[in-house]
């Protein structure tokens, strides 16, 4: 379980996160939703230690990993990397690299958790070739490839930052299909998106961010069962004044 507690973050003068708390449970797909600029990406980056936070705690399977609460030691990075795979909104690889080179890079640096077979499967699933340079991939293809880089890592948790944003319909469908596959099965997934309809049948839990805090957390199926409301209905209630 990833436990986020009272997370605080200021950017210059803007107080983006004012005490965000929620958990990411193993085996569940949790969607972090919020309006633009609500700090969704910041939370994912903070979990990965890519941005320092000003307060709060981030525990991954019980171990504290928030940068400001941990010592100046190197093992933390390894612990985090073996627990959580982060799929940022772009491939985060040099554009001059070829697809195959990027895969070899991952295999090389994550010998313990890189699943080559899974990577091949996903490459075939998305119909990606190894010879192409990353810089020449279309946005949709790049997003799919990005997914391959992250999901072929056998980590208990996966974070995805806006996997659908700015790409074409068919690529979106292909990416959405990933959520139905075994590639995510059993893993704790945290996804941010502002295109909630794309995933509304796919997610288990929803965390709604508003004004720097968590406005509502709910189980989407329970919500439908109990109140006969869709996720979008709830979001309307939360975000409409």
């Amino acid at each position: 379980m990833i436990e986020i507690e009272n997370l605080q973050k200021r950017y210059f003068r803007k107080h983006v996160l004012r005490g965000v708390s929620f958990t990411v449970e193993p085996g569940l797909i949790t969607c972090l939703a919020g309006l633009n600029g609500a700090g969704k990406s910041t939370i994912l980056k903070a979990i990965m230690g890519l941005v320092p936070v000003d307060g709060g705690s981030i525990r991954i399977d019980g171990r504290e990993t928030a940068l400001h609460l941990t010592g100046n030691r190197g093992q933390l990075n390894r612990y985090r990397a073996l627990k959580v795979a982060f799929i940022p909104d772009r491939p985060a690889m040099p554009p001059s690299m070829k697809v195959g080179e990027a895969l070899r890079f991952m295999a090389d640096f994550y010998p313990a958790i890189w699943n080559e077979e899974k990577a091949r499967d996903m490459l075939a699933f998305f119909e990606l070739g190894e010879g192409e340079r990353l810089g020449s991939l279309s946005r949709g293809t790049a997003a799919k490839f990005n997914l391959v880089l992250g999901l072929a890592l056998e980590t208990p948790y996966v974070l995805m930052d806006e996997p659908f944003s700015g790409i074409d319909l068919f690529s979106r469908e292909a990416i959405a299909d990933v959520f139905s596959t075994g590639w995510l099965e059993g893993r704790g997934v945290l996804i941010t998106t502002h295109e909630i309809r794309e995933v509304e049948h796919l997610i288990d839990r929803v965390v709604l961010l508003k004004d720097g805090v968590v406005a509502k957390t709910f189980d989407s199926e329970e919500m439908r069962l109990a109140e006969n409301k869709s996720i979008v209905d709830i979001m309307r209630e939360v975000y409409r004044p």
Partner: protein
Amino acid sequence: MQPDEGFTFEFNSREPVYLQVVRHFKVWIATGRLKAGQTIPSRRELAVLAKINPNTAQRAYREMEEQRLIVTEGNSPSRITGDERVLRSVRSELLEEAVDRFLELIRPIDVSTDELVALVRQKHAARNGGNSGHD
């Protein structure tokens, strides 16, 4: 049960997805597209087929198991139950459910039962053409 056989899923967003999956199965049972004892896809295959998350597929199967629509023995694939009573009840349950909903919809319209029955008979005959009466 393959996608090209016409097993497609459509979901609305206000009902729990797993219940909608169950309903799809019930419809296919009631219409005979799924027969007693027929093996059905694994949870994983269902998730891919229905484009839902495997947790939801799992929940739908659990629901169907509880309703005894499907049976799973050991490690072998799940199959549609052979229990005729259950299968028959599916049909009546679906019908009753549909009629309930229908009645709910027309409640605001003030209409007598006879008028309603006459209208249903007429529409039903028109849809089914000359086959009416031979069931």
